[in-house]
Each structure stands twice: as structure tokens, then as C-alpha cells.
């Protein structure tokens, strides 16, 4: 099929100069969601009666935690004061380091960003980190000072802060109130005038970026895309340049926010493409779509495969749930293709799976969804990275679970993944950040003053150090002001040992983990103490020991529970007595019996709570 030079009919599309693609970025609680909601309302995209706050975040867990995990793009039409109608594509971005890559792809689909700053709080940690991300992506920035309805609002000072701290001109900053709607009209006008329209060639071969995808039982994979050149319509045969596969377009449309089919997605536009593909993994975020018959020469830059960084064991507390867990993972995988797993067997926990995640937040979210949506009670074990173990016989094996580590005598060396980490924070925290990095085996490689209020530091550090509590620690030691980004660097040899935990003298494989030898003693002590807090007192004393090989390096003891009996007589109300007993038992249900020791779920994640 020859298409070049033809003009595609587009009844719903609009001239490229009237398109504005942008994200809204903000520090947490500065009002990003309410402003999104007001925009949808003012442009009549959503009836007021249908308003449900945080329209863009759809998953329950997203709403509860106030975080965006998946990206979302909504199209609105805006009749501007100049008498013209503009097409706005509002692209939501995930807000956590686990999803940095998804953020970078979402920003790559925009020409501009609305930077929301709370008029009472001023510039805060994530304002700095998000503004930096947006500036690095070369976006036009529209500052919006929110919550001006509050008596304590001080917009003029906030303007000064935006100029001084972020080096963003604030003359054009718009004062708004997401609550009352005041100023939202001005904001929409500013978006028209301050954010550049997309550039691109409608007649060039298709070049479109995949921002996100989800799986629909009936239509297969549905991808959210941004068209940079060319156009997409139903019936086109498209090629995924990285995944190297073709598919026939079953339909295209936009979200308003309900899915609305359109004839075509043309240059500059954002919308969804129904691929009909039944394999969720076939479509990858960051991939470039082009025409199969007339492909563009080069894919868009910046593609990265979503690779799991962290592996943990997931085991059903009740072994009978093993098959249910497998089914649940299969189902979840459909709209979370980054999830990978393989069966794992533990002496202590029975049958389960070793599951790969993008990061710990991703793991928590997945575990919570499995428990909530599939009604499972799960134990997650200590997170691990993918170690490369070179055996004395010359073979290299991937070890993602401590229990797969061969005996020490059969190991020639172990290599672990190292990262290039980038931390941006205000200058007063550089000392604290460096200290934190050193504690986590990090080495500073570079330090650049970006503005008078922000410094970029680069570190070389092992991934294993980052997956535990590094991000939380970073946030707490910088009062939330630091932002973190990282990418894989290389594998390097490291002196690693396996630390085992024994309960009542028996090794519990699910509690083992791999650790750098310099940290083994401290961690073993910390872990034994933490487990002593977590494991409740029981019928017998429970000794807890930390060991490397045959050598015990730490110990603690859970004393026996000396008294556990309901003695009171309730005038013959035995039912009441029995109910108290049953209530006590209910608590035990979420524990795992290992030998004769009842171990609560959180014990298997105790390593995350150890203060060194």
C-alpha cells in the first residue's frame, strides 16, 4: 500500500498548531489532582455530576496511596479567548523512582508542563525534582500557584522562590485555586500561549511513541501513543521497531476520559491504538510504532527494556493457594507486563514463586493487589538482586534467591549489578546524601551545581544497596528534597556471603539473604534483634541465630510465653470465653508455622526494617 503524499481524512483531528501536549507536575499534596479535575470540568470533558476526585488515577491502590503507577492521557477541547478551539492532551505521570522510566517516556510525549506550587507551602522537594525532570526533557514550563483561596497564601513570595530556586521565570505564573476554580481559565489560556505546539510531518512515515499499554480481554493490548510523524488509522499495519512485530490496527481513539473512537490519530496527537495482540508482553513502553509498509528509518531515542531489578519470593500462607497464586499472577501480568516469575520451593514456606519487580514499591503494590483482588494471604521474602555467580567449574549462573547460591567452596567469584545513581538535592543536604551513599557502599563520581538551590550528585553504587531502604532513607535525611534516578551500569566482582537465620536451631531458608561481608555482622545482629521484636512469645523459648556457613555470628532469644490462659469465669457464658479464644486464633492465622515456631508474615521482610 502506497501512502506517502496522500492526505488522510481527519474529521476529529485538528491543525497541529492547535494541539498542546502537557503534564502536570507537583510536590505531593500541592493539588495536582484537583487542578486536573478542574480542567476536565471547565472544558466540559466531564459533567460536574460525574466528578469523582482524582479522575486520572483509576486503580484503587493508586487512589488510596495517592500515587500514580500507570500513565494516563486524556484529551480535552478548549475554546480559547482568541475564538479558536485547541486540543489539549493531558498526560499523567507516575510519581515514584520505581517508575522513573515510565515518567521519562510520558514527559517525552509532551511539549510542556504545568508546574503546580502550593501558595502556602512554596517550593518543596518534589517541586525541585519534578521541575528538573521537566527542564531536562526541554519542556515549556507554566508555573501555577495553587490554593490562593487560603488565607495563608503568599503568592508573591512563592513567585520569588520559583525564580530563585528553580531558575524558572515566574512573571507568567498563574494564580489558581483548584478548590474554587478561580484562575483555571487563565491557566488554560497560558497553556495555549506558553506551551509550544508539537512539531512533526504529517506526510512523513509514521513515528509514534508507546507511553503505556494495558490488556483488554476482548480487544487485546491497547497502547497509549504519541504520534510524532505521520498518522494512524484503523486497518493500518503497524510495526513495533524494538519488539520487531507487526499488527493490524483494530481501532484508534482518545480518552475523554471515557474511550472515544476517532477516525485517525494524526501528527502531534495522543490517543490509544487497539492492537488486537493477545500477548501483553508484545507491546513495550518506549517502543516506536511505524508503518510496516513504509517504515521510518530510525526509532525514537531512549528506549529501555523494563527489566526487573528486585526479586522476592511470594508464597501463599496456606499451601492450598499455590494454584490460585499462579492464576492470579497470570491475570495480573496481563496489565502489568513488567512482572516476571518462576516457581520457587522453600523448605520453610513450601511452594511459591520468585517474582521480579521494577522496585520495592512495585513489589508492595503487586503484593497488595494479589491479596486484595484475589483474596490471597501471602508471605514475601527478603528482596534480592540478580547475582552472577561464577563457579569453580567455569559455569556462570544467575542467582536471584539466596537459597540458589552454591556452596562457598564451589564459587570462584560473585558479581553484583552496579548502578549509576543520580541524586538532585538542595546544597545543604549534600553532606547527608554523601554519608548515606557511603553507608550503602556508594562512591561519589561527580557533583554539579545546577542552580543556587540544587546540586546534582552522581554515584556508583550496588543495586542491592538501593533496593532495601535507600530511597526512604534518602527522603528522610533530606526532608524529602532529594530526587533519585538510576540506571544499570555494569556487573562487578564483590565479596558477598550468604547470611542464614536459624530459629530454634533450624535454618529457615526463606530468611536467608546475600550481603556484603563487611556488613554481615551488623546486619545479622540487627536482624536477630528485629526478629525478636516481630516473633511473638510462644509456648517455648525461641533462640534466633544468624550464621555464615557453620559460624554463628549473632543471636537473640524470644522468651517463652509464661502465661496464656483465660481464667475469668463469666457466669457460665462459655460462648464468650470461646469467642475470645477464637479472636486470639484469628491473629495466628496470618502467621506461618515453621517447625513449632509461629512466624508472622512481616518477619520475612524484617531485613527492610533493620537499622544498621
Amino acid at each position, binding site marked *: 500500500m502506497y501512502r506517502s503524499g496522500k492526505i488522510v481524512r481527519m474529521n476529529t483531528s485538528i491543525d497541529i498548531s492547535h494541539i498542546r501536549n502537557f503534564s502536570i507536575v507537583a510536590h505531593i499534596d500541592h493539588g495536582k489532582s484537583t487542578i486536573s479535575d478542574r480542567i476536565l470540568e471547565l472544558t466540559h470533558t466531564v459533567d460536574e455530576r460525574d466528578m469523582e476526585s482524582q479522575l486520572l488515577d483509576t486503580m484503587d491502590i493508586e487512589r488510596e496511596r495517592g500515587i500514580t503507577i500507570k500513565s494516563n492521557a486524556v484529551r480535552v477541547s478548549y475554546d480559547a479567548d482568541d475564538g479558536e478551539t485547541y486540543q489539549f492532551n493531558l498526560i499523567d505521570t507516575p510519581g515514584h523512582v520505581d517508575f522513573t522510566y515510565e515518567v521519562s517516556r510520558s514527559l517525552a510525549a509532551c511539549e510542556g508542563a504545568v508546574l503546580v506550587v502550593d501558595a502556602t507551602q512554596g517550593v518543596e522537594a518534589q517541586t525541585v525534582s519534578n521541575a528538573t525532570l521537566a527542564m531536562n526533557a526541554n519542556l515549556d514550563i507554566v508555573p501555577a500557584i495553587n490554593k490562593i483561596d487560603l488565607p495563608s497564601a503568599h503568592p508573591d513570595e512563592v513567585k520569588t522562590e520559583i525564580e530563585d530556586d528553580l531558575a524558572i521565570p515566574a512573571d507568567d505564573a498563574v494564580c489558581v485555586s483548584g478548590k474554587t476554580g478561580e484562575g483555571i481559565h487563565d491557566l488554560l489560556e497560558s497553556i495555549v500561549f506558553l506551551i509550544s505546539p508539537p512539531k512533526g510531518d504529517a506526510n512523513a512515515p509514521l513515528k509514534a511513541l508507546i507511553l503505556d499499554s494495558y490488556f483488554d480481554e476482548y480487544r487485546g493490548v491497547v497502547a497509549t501513543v504519541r504520534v510524532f510523524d505521520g498518522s494512524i488509522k484503523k486497518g493500518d499495519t503497524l510495526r513495533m521497531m524494538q519488539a520487531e512485530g507487526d499488527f493490524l490496527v483494530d481501532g484508534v481513539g482518545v480518552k475523554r476520559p471515557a474511550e472515544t473512537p476517532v477516525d485517525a490519530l494524526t501528527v502531534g496527537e495522543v490517543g490509544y491504538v487497539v492492537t488486537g495482540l493477545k500477548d501483553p508482553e508484545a507491546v513495550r513502553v518506549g517502543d516506536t510504532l511505524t508503518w510496516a509498509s513504509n517504515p521510518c528509518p530510525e526509532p525514537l531515542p531512549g528506549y529501555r527494556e523494563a527489566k526487573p531489578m528486585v526479586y522476592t519470593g511470594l508464597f501463599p500462607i496456606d499451601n492450598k493457594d499455590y494454584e490460585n497464586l499462579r492464576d492470579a499472577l497470570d491475570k495480573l501480568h496481563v496489565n502489568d507486563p513488567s512482572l516476571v516469575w518462576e516457581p520457587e520451593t522453600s523448605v520453610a514456606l513450601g511452594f511459591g514463586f520468585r517474582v521480579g519487580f521494577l522496585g520495592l514499591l512495585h513489589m508492595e503494590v503487586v503484593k497488595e493487589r494479589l491479596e486484595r483482588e484475589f483474596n490471597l494471604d501471602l508471605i514475601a521474602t527478603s528482596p534480592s538482586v540478580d547475582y552472577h555467580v561464577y563457579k569453580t567449574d567455569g559455569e556462570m549462573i544467575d542467582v536471584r534467591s539466596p537459597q540458589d547460591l552454591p556452596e562457598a567452596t564451589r564459587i570462584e567469584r560473585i558479581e553484583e549489578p552496579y548502578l549509576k545513581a543520580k541524586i538532585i538535592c538542595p546544597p545543604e543536604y549534600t553532606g547527608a546524601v554523601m554519608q548515606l551513599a557511603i553507608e550503602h557502599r556508594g562512591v561519589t563520581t561527580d557533583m554539579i551545581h545546577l542552580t543556587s538551590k540544587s546540586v546534582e550528585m552522581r554515584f556508583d553504587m550496588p543495586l542491592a544497596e538501593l533496593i532495601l531502604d535507600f530511597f526512604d532513607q534518602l527522603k528522610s535525611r533530606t526532608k524529602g528534597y532529594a530526587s533519585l534516578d538510576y540506571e544499570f551500569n555494569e556487573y562487578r566482582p564483590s565479596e558477598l556471603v550468604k547470611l542464614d537465620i536459624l530459629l530454634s536451631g533450624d535454618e529457615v531458608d526463606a530468611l536467608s539473604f546475600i550481603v556484603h561481608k563487611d556488613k554481615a555482622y551488623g546486619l545479622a545482629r540487627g536482624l536477630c534483634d528485629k526478629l525478636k521484636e516481630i516473633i511473638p512469645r510462644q*509456648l517455648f523459648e525461641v533462640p534466633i541465630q544468624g550464621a555464615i556457613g557453620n559460624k554463628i555470628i549473632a543471636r537473640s532469644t524470644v522468651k517463652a510465653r509464661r*502465661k496464656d490462659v483465660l481464667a475469668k469465669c463469666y457466669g*457460665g457464658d*462459655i460462648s464468650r470465653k470461646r469467642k475470645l*479464644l477464637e479472636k486470639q486464633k484469628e491473629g495466628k492465622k496470618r502467621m506461618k508455622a515453621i517447625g513449632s515456631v509461629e512466624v508472622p508474615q512481616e518477619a520475612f521482610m524484617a531485613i527492610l526494617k533493620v537499622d544498621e
Partner: protein
Amino acid sequence: MSVTALYVHVPFCAQKCRYCDFDSRSFAPCDLDAALDAYFEQLYARLDAFGNAGALAGIRTVYVGGGTPSLAGERLVELARRISRWCKPVEFTCEANPESLTSQLAAALAEVGVTRISLGVQTLDNAELAAIGRIHDADRALAAIATVKAAGIDVSCDLMCGLPGQTAASWERTLDGVLTAAPHHVSVYPLTLEEGTPLYRMACRDESLEPDEDFQAACMDVARNRLGAAGYHPYEVASYALDGHECAHNIAYWTGQGYLGLGRSAAGMLDAGDFARLAGLFCGALARGDAYRVRLVQRDDAATTFDAECLSQREAAAEDLMLACRMTRGVGSDLLVRSANIIPEDELAAACDRAFELGLASWVSDDAKGHAGRVTSKDVIEGRTRARLAPTHLGWLDGNVLFELFWDLA
């Protein structure tokens, strides 16, 4: 009529204790009389209804609990008098608090057939008494014990361990004092914090008020040793008695006997046959088709609404086993053999074996004294050997684990 035990609840107190979550109300003195009058009228009416239905003829033990029954004074005497019109109990207990038990009341109660007074002594340390909101002092408590003995009837003392401010030394002093006063029966209860009580709220702010379980265990051990040495043998988790002075009424509870409950919040337990005969007395309470045992709790003063809980035959059997574990003698051969008709034998044997393995219970021969040599649970359950499964020291103090093992058979 197979019901042999009657419980009567008197939900009134001069002042509620800070730890108490039983149903009891305190009234200003000016309103108390009227409230008691009204309440007792309803008790009398209910008693007559039971009597006329023929439910009281077989009663052998009566227990009037509270609340503070002694607060009712003359009304309590009248209640006892009315009860003895319907039955001739061999044991008749009234609970009393030291401050409201006068010698006249004790004598009057003895006169009308009360055989036993259970006194809420709790501790003989005045500071500890004040801390839990008791309105008597140690001297008053000791005097009350003497008063009951003077009236010629049995006296039992309730004691509590793990009270705010209590120490090993003060506990010893309390035990010394009580032993000197020489009651016939002693109960030792570890304090538990119940949600919604003032003490619970206080403990939320001040952790030191929370009872220390290790300390309570130590107190229970000391009590067992001291009381044992003085001739009080333990026969249930919390109960000690001189020979022949065990509380038959409480034993009925632990051995699955049926009982009637009278008064607001009083619990009764009937087998399906008795319940069917007496259903007219429990309006609105329905028994499931498979109900083998029905437990009823009266919800209001006028006895117009009831909570009914139905247990299947298997649940009742598991409950009997669980309750038997509260008794120092443990689960007897007969009960095990009977239970095996209802609960699959291998499950029953597994629970017994588990209790044995965990050290919670051991086999004691019924014939000779001491431990039976090489008893297997199967031999006992199948009737080849006669032995009982008695809680060990561990099974006594960590009884919940043992109870759970048997209740799990339901």
C-alpha cells in the same frame, strides 16, 4: 428434667470497678432502691415462670452472681427464700462484696438456705484496692470472711494478680492474710484489660498499668504452692478448695451440664430436648435444626429478648473436651470414649497426641496414682485403657493453646 444448675445475675454495683466489663450498673443511692425493686420483681416473676414450667425441680446448685448481689440486701434473702420454694439445692452460692455484707445479711442468707458466700476480696493491699476502684479496704475484707464463717456457711475469696502497683511481696502478704483468715475456697484470677473499661483507657496512656504476664505467671505459681501447702487443692485453672469444698456449680459449667440463667445478661445452656420443652420461656429464640446444645443469654430486664447460640453435636463434644482441659483432673476416659462416637477417632487421637507432645498434658492412670506407663491415646479412646489426659504445669499456665487444640475438633 435434667437441668441441675441455676445462675441468677444481679447487675448492680455501688461503684463499677475500673477493670470490670461485666454487665453491671451503678446508681445514685437515691435511685438504687427503686431500680433494685423493679429488677427483683422481674426476677421473681421469671423464677415463677421457670418453676411453673417444671424447670427448677431438679436444681442442685444455685449461684447468684453479679454485679454485687449483697447490695440488694433483704431482697437477696427474699430471692433465696423464693428459690427454695421451687427446689432444694445442695449448694447455694451468693456473691458479695465486703462493704455490703453485714453479719445480719450473712445470717439471714444462711437461714434461708444459702450455703456459700463468694467474696470479692481481690487483694489485701489498700493501695492496690484503690487503684482498681474497689470501695472496701483490707480490714473490711477480713472482717467479712469472719462474718460469713460466723454465720456457719462456706466462704470463698476471689483474688487478683497483676494489679497496678502489685509486687511479689504484696502478693505474698495478700496470700498470708487470706490463709490466716482461712476461707474454704480461693479463686485466683490474673487481671485482664478489657477494651472499653476505664483501666484499659488508663493503660493506653500509662503502659506500667498493663499487667505483666510473666509477673502474673509467677503470682499464679506462688499461689498454687502456698495454697497447696495449706491444704487447698487446685481443681480448675483458677480454683482452689479444701477437700469437699469445691464449687459444684462451677464444676457443672466445666463438665457440660445444663444450666438455667435468670436475669439480664445471664447465660443458660440447655440441650435440644430441654430447650424444646422450655422454648416458651425464651420468646424469639430459635434453635437450628441440627442444634444439639443451645446457649441463651437474656438481653433485657424483662426477659423478652435473648441471644441464642446453637451448637451441633460435634461442636458440643469439642466444647466439652475444651472445658474438661480447664479442670485439673483433665479429660477423663469416659469423655474420650464418648467423644469418639461423634468426632473421628484419628482426629481426636491426634489432638491428644499433640497436647502430649507439646508438653501441655500428660496421661494419668485412673486406677493407680501417678503417671500411667506407655498409655496411647488410641488405647484410651477405644476403651482398652482407663487414663485421663491431665494438663501439665505448662498446660495450666498456657491453657489457651490446649483449649484451642480441642476446640479445633469442632
